[in-house]
């Protein structure tokens, strides 16, 4: 294990690890979305990025509206539980603020691309997509005959994003990362990507990690840098730390119906704060208290000591 401490700030991580033109992966499904990193990419005015994310929701909507994304590789794009994603629709329907190239899959097929990469394979088969119209518009989707049966299968190529941004509940200073609740596509995305940047709700001692090795989803040696960023997933959630902020999703949905509304939102919640700490301050203590869940602890298990 690298003994050197890998802790940096979100600003440093984005500055150093995101180059204009990169393909970026954002980890999670509903849970643990790395919003702190997304806001900082927008603040640093990164350009021409490609985003690989099956369910990019507000993260990509903000990036599209702010002109950060050139291309989107995705599976579903809406404001979950609320409705449309307006910046996405404006970009695809009207090229506002600029044209957006899209490469579209089912959730399963796109996750399969990451799975293939995470397994060191150039492709994987899947039963997804067969018979739908998706393959007509996406040359990366092919079909093959099973070598053992008369079945026809869909095949998709591995994808290796340049950088994976992963928010986790806890990590040590070397990047050994643990998650509970929804794991999403974090395992696949981290192992598929060329660089892995982790933010954690809490940095804990390696001893905490070592007490429960089955909870570790990313080993430290895969991780380039680690950021401690409490509330790093707001308005999505971190299991046991805070709830999803539904009001925030609804507010975003209604305010971003117009370009002006989106600009105002951007100025208020992203450009208007210097970093995550200011963002949290702006959310205010009342909101933080409201989103904090009651405690519901797992029971401990005994690994046994074998000297």
């Amino acid at each position, binding site marked *: 294990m690298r003994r050197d401490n890998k802790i940096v700030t979100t600003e440093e991580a984005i500055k150093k690890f995101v180059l204009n033109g990169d393909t970026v992966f954002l980890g999670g*499904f509903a849970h643990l979305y790395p919003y702190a990193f997304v806001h900082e990419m927008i603040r640093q005015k990164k350009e021409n990025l490609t985003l690989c994310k099956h369910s990019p929701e507000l993260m990509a909507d903000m990036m599209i509206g702010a002109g950060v994304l050139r291309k989107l590789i995705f599976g579903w794009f809406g404001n979950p539980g609320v409705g449309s994603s307006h910046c996405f*629709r404006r970009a695809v329907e009207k090229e506002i603020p600029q044209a957006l190239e899209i490469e579209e899959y089912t959730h399963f097929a796109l996750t*399969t691309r990451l799975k293939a990469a995470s397994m060191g394979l150039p492709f994987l088969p*899947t039963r997804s997509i067969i018979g739908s119209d*998706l393959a007509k518009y996406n040359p990366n989707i092919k079909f093959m005959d099973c070598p053992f049966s008369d079945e026809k299968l869909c095949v998709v190529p591995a994808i290796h994003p340049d950088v994976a941004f992963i928010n986790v509940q806890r990590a040590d200073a070397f990047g050994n990362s643990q998650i509970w609740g929804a794991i999403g*596509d974090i395992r696949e995305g981290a192992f598929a990507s060329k660089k892995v940047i982790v933010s954690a709700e809490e940095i804990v001692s390696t001893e905490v990690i070592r007490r429960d090795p089955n909870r570790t989803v990313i080993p430290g040696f895969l991780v380039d840098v680690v950021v401690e960023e409490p509330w790093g997933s707001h308005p999505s959630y971190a299991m046991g730390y805070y709830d*999803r902020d539904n009001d925030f999703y609804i507010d975003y949905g209604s305010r971003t119906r117009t370009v002006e509304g989106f600009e105002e939102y951007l100025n208020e919640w992203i450009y208007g704060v210097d970093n995550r700490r200011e963002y949290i301050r702006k959310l205010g203590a009342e909101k933080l208290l409201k989103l904090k869940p009651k405690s519901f602890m797992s029971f401990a298990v005994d690994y046994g000591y074998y000297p």
Partner: protein
Amino acid sequence: MENKYSKDYTTQELMVAAAAREINDGEVVFVGIGLPVLATLLAQRTHAPNLVMIYEAGVVGAKPARLALSIGDPTLFSGALMALDFHDVFAMFLQRGLCDVSFMSGAQIDKYGNINATVIGDYNKPKVRLPGSGGAYDLGTSKKMLIIARHEKRRFVEKVDFITTVGYLSGRDSRQKAGIKGGGPSAVITNLGILRFEKESKEMYLETYHPGVTVQQVKDNTSWNLKISPRIFETKPPTQEEVMLLRNELDPNGIFLK
């Protein structure tokens, strides 16, 4: 309580009760949010106590302390039986063929039960860009796909602009021949009636109309010449017990039942 039919219910309540009756005890149900959750919970509380719920976010046997507002709601994970990776939900449950029932909706549904949730108009120059498949395609490979939708002419179209979730493709055995697993759409539950698919042709037909709805009204809200069952009858209303459970226990704050 006697299992009498209710005389005081909304169309939504009727739709939820009708959907619940499509679920058998012991079945594995892939649940989204909204009416499908209520239908599943209603089935669990009445005739299907052993059903198993799976959510796309990767959770089996959730015991939510509140009605989930989004499919990844944390309340689904606290106290659930099993949490799993996103890829495993699709690979080890849906693709593996372990899911019996799924719920579906869409902006367009055609006469073979194909569903469009991707785009209205041309894909490259869309009139309306919709969210896309997400998990929908794969949910459509469960043994029984239940479609719940508002019955409107622009939604019930002869041919969808884009096939997001496969129904019976071009009918007959075309779905099977294309190598698509699962049983295909089993019922379409709308605010006007319940529709099913002919055994051979796989074309959609009207099986029942809801109390107070006429067959003509259903035809008027369908953009092709909808077939009508020769044995058509009126949809059974929800029971008093069902309405009571929905109003008092499953959605007491009227989050989804408005």
